[in-house]
């Protein structure tokens, strides 16, 4: 059996982290291809439901990344996000969702190498904790029907 390849959904802020990811690409830094990027205007835009829905929909991990505190394009968006997301990830960990599954990070537009390192770390961690089975929606019956009706 081949090695488990986690699916990671990344919510990246448009101004820093998305540009950081772009830089990583342009600079040809290698990082695992497990990340699916969703660009958001600001880390302050991230609703806790985004994270939960990603996990429910089958993501093994969620990466949330924005500008470093103080560098927000909208001045203060990431300060609010910091409070919100820290509290939220604490709550999820407390409820028993492995802390590796929700990764919060600051990546600026110039940190291409750091972005590559971050994604590598996230994917490595998720390979250790394994597939997300506690929080994923149960669609077994629908999948069975899909096969049966092919």
């Amino acid at each position, binding site marked *: 059996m081949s090695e488990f390849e986690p699916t990671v959904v990344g919510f990246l802020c448009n101004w820093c982290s998305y540009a950081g990811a772009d830089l990583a690409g342009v600079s040809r830094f290698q990082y695992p291809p497990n990340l699916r990027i969703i660009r958001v205007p600001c880390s302050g835009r991230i609703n806790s439901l985004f994270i939960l829905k990603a996990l429910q929909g089958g993501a093994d991990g969620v990466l949330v990344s924005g500008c470093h505190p103080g560098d927000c394009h909208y001045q203060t968006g990431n300060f609010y996000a910091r409070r919100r997301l820290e509290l939220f990830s604490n709550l999820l960990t407390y409820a028993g969702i492995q802390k590796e599954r929700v990764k919060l990070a600051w990546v600026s537009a110039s940190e291409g190498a750091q972005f590559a390192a971050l994604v590598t770390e996230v994917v490595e961690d998720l390979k250790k904790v394994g597939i997300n089975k506690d929080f994923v*929606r149960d669609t077994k*019956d*629908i999948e069975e*029907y899909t096969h049966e*009706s092919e």
Partner: protein
Amino acid sequence: MKLFRIDQEEWNRFLESLRNDMEVCQISEREHPFKEKLLPPKETLFYYRKDTPKQKEILNTKKRLFVGLSPCDAKTKQLLDLNFLSEPYPDPYYKALRDNTWVITKACQDFEPYCFCDQIGDSPAKLNGADGILYDLGESYHLLLDNEMLIQKLEEFGKSGESIENEDSSYEKGKIPSRNLAPLPIEPLKKNLLSQINNQELWEQIESTCLSCGACTFLCPACYCFDIQDTSYGRAGKRERIYDSCMFKSYTAEASGHNPRPTGKERWRQRLLHKFSYYPTLYGEIGCTGCGRCIKACPSKIDIREAIKHAAKYCG
């Protein structure tokens, strides 16, 4: 209808013997209404493909026997039948479940603080359309069976019973609780509650502390309102029905923003009228079993017995 005397050990062996033919479930808790077995909180209606017009209906025809529930819960089947089997569209899903479900209740030996079946003309020892009822005599039971299949099974098991005219015949029923409570004024409600639809004062008083949650209706054995929703994954999906509640604001809200029952007053009016006016008008029975779960579950302790009494004052 046949009456059997059966001791506990024999009874358990009999249930064991039935397990070859059907699933036998003993119900001892009273927190959840029996309707969950006939109208599950989540029921798949059919699966479908999203890419081609193909679908597959799911009818649950597993044979099940439920034992030990309270007599009031047996009434669930009678009341739900009235709605779900009514013409012109008998509900195939409900029909499949109920046709394969048998119920043997156990006469209650105590009243709970909230229940009031005795106040709406029922008794904690009534058959209420169940297939059988157990009367606890301490060491043994009197078992009254009103179902040919079960009678035959029990006779094959080696018991012989005595034919009985009806459930009111005299035989030992063990301890049947009774208390001296005045019956609730249901009749005036049946007749005249509809005339009170514009009585703002009445509905305001009844509803004043309601929080519009659905605890009462979700736990009511006679409330059956449901919602239908789709869940899909990849190229296929399923359509499910789930509980809904007339106490929710979103229950009647239309996409345009218009809501025919915009405030709690209309919603409480609907609930009370549905149980005590519409149900009797349509089917002759009130939509209430007297189990009292709604009173117990209500966060603001609204008591339907008091609501009935209060409304009756206006109904003459």
